């Protein structure tokens, strides 16, 4: 199978999905009316409700929803073979992903810009709001663990990467200074800082710098991964994880215009140029999949059975619960006209599907064989090497030196992860202050809240293996998606509209996610814990670490299952209630 065929499948799915299916649902069911004032126009308070042009909002929505999820998920999922992963990316987006994003925006617009917390409280049950907060909290904690693991234990331990990352961060700070304090034109700032960022990444690949970091990590011929400090954490991994935590600390504490925003801005250009460069290389090369199998096995070691685990492994590339929160709390309050909702919500999700297909291709075609993919290393390493292979088709390494492409891909991923992680820590700090600040006043101190969130992060990174965190993170994400689809279904029911297009996706996502959590709980407590010693030896971990990791994973899965079952109970009550209201509102026939 050639990469061009895959890209064409993606384009065809977008064409049919958006222009036929999505448009038909929008016109027949939602029936957007541009004469109605959206909350952005009705309130226009200058704080949360500010109308924006549809194209601007599309860019904003896409940037808000596209992160590491659509990259790492497909790369991990092709272990089942390329066909199941591709089917879920395409059909998941086609029938479920855009439905959730679009439905969330419409719900927000038609309900005066209320957030999902308030809507859950009203449409489902009062406790469903707390259930949503629980899902969000675990989702955010697991994101920190998953991304922190890939960055701290994977990307930053490559000696060619740390300096590049640090220099890009410095360049970001300079961009903030230039924009906000020196009032330099944004175009000049962009050109200068992006060029400096490239120089920084290039400097990181120089022999002297690599030697320095190799020495710092204690890497020698006899110790190719460096000395182990504790558990399975080598010196390199310790430095990498502490660097991640330090960067997140500053990102969470400093004013957003000083650190987070300008670094995000420079990172956006690194990422965009990387994607464009990779796409150009792919179009020049047009590689095939070699012997990459369409299907390998139903149950993959370390992950689990294809159903239900594949459907939570690829989250953001097909459907992601976080999109519903971004859509309802952000986009819905900025929509200028109702008819813009499909273009912004549905369009951005279909575009993200394309992004996921690009990541899928880095795993399946860049290495020429399945064995090549397996030897490339962890998911992040697969992506950076794959992207580098695409960009080398037009001579990136020839122009900027051997190894630049891989370093660039690694910095690309590191920045994407870090820009999300410090925003997550900010949220967790505020959330813990709001939820527990009255009982524990120390949590109101931003430094205390931040440090606690980062300590939890380190615990996860050091103890729990990536694949275990990733699947549970995906499950927490998909539970939020199920809740969003349920909310949209209930709203459609209450308005007497056709709800089949949201109800069946909700049922599928809910059952699949509960199945995935149940499997992971069973695996943790009944498969892994009794065989901790054998697993520890096989994976070069300590027995204590394997035991702790499986207890943490099992406990988190159990909490999520219990809250999901509570939600299921409330959902049934809510559905019966809404159907009852609809029946009692129907006219009584005269006998």
């Amino acid at each position, binding site marked *: 199978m050639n990469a061009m065929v895959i890209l064409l499948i993606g384009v065809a799915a977008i064409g049919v999905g958006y222009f036929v299916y999505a448009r038909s649902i929008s016109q027949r069911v939602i029936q957007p009316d541009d004469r109605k004032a959206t909350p952005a126009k009705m309130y226009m*308070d200058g704080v949360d409700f500010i109308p924006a042009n549809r194209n601007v909002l599309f860019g904003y929505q896409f940037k808000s929803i596209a992160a590491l999820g659509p990259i790492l998920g497909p790369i991990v999922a092709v272990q089942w073979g390329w066909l199941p992963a591709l089917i879920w990316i395409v059909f998941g987006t086609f029938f479920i992903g855009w439905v959730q994003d679009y439905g969330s925006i419409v719900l927000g617009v038609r309900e005066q810009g209320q957030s999902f917390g308030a809507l859950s409280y009203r449409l489902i049950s009062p406790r469903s709001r707390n259930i949503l907060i629980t899902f969000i909290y675990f989702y955010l904690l697991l994101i920190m663990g998953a991304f922190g693991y890939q960055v701290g234990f994977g990307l930053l331990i490559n000696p060619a990467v740390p300096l590049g990352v640090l220099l890009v961060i410095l360049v970001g700070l300079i961009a903030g200074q230039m924009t906000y304090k020196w009032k330099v034109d944004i175009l000049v700032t962009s050109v200068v800082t992006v060029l400096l960022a490239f120089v920084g990444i290039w400097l990181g690949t120089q022999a002297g710098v690599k030697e320095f970091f190799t020495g710092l990590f204690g890497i020698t011929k006899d110790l190719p991964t460096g000395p182990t400090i504790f558990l399975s954490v080598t010196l390199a991994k310790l430095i990498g994880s502490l660097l991640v935590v330090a960067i997140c600390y500053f990102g969470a504490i400093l004013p957003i215009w000083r650190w987070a925003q300008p670094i995000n801005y420079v990172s956006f*250009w690194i990422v965009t140029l990387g994607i464009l460069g990779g796409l150009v290389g792919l179009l020049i090369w047009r590689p095939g999949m070699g012997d990459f199998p369409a299907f390998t096995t139903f149950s993959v070691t370390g992950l689990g059975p294809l159903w239900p685990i594949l459907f939570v492994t690829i989250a953001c590339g097909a459907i992601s619960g976080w999109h519903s929160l971004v859509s309802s709390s952000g986009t819905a309050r900025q929509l200028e006209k109702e008819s813009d909702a499909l273009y912004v919500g549905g369009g951005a999700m279909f575009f993200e599907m394309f992004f996921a297909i690009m990541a899928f291709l880095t795993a399946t075609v860049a290495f020429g064989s399945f064995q090549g993919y397996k030897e490339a290393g962890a998911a992040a390493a697969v992506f950076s090497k794959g992207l580098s292979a695409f960009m080398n088709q037009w001579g990136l390494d020839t122009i900027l030196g051997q190894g630049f492409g891989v370093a660039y891909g690694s910095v690309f991923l590191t920045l994407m992860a870090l820009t999300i992680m410090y925003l997550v820590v900010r*949220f967790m700090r505020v959330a813990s202050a709001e939820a527990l600040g009255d009982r524990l006043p120390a949590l109101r101190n931003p430094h205390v809240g931040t440090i606690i969130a980062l300590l939890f992060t380190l615990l996860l990174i050091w103890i729990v293996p990536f694949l275990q965190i990733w699947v549970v993170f995906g499950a927490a994400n998909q539970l939020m998606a199920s809740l969003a689809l349920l909310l949209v279904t209930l709203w459609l029911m209450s308005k007497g509209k056709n709800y089949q297009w949201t109800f069946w996706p909700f049922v599928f996502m809910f059952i699949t996610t509960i199945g995935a959590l149940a499997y992971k709980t069973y695996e943790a407590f009944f498969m892994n814990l009794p065989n901790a010693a054998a697993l520890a030896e096989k994976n070069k971990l300590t027995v204590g670490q394997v035991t702790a990791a499986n207890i943490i994973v099992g406990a988190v899965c159990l909490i999520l299952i219990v809250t999901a079952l509570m939600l299921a109970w409330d959902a049934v009550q809510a559905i019966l209630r809404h159907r009852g209201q609809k029946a009692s509102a129907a006219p009584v026939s005269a006998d």
Partner: protein
Amino acid sequence: MKWWLTLLHGARALLDILYGATIYEMVRDLKKERSQREHLFALVVFGDLLGLPVLPPYYTLKILPYIVPHLPGWRTSLLRERDLTDLCDQEIT
């Protein structure tokens, strides 16, 4: 002629998308911060409109004509019920 206009519209749309993905959030956050400070000022000066008498009305009435156009948005923003999920308009996926 029509194809030329279509190209121009397409280029304009792409620039808007790029703006939305890059600078828009920074501009939005700056506007939010400015609005929050303006709302705080209005709360201090015209708090009695929400039942919070802070300054004597004699002084505040002098600036009333300048603040009247912003009053509806100000009231909505201050009195709107907030939820933790309101913080979720950030890029975290």
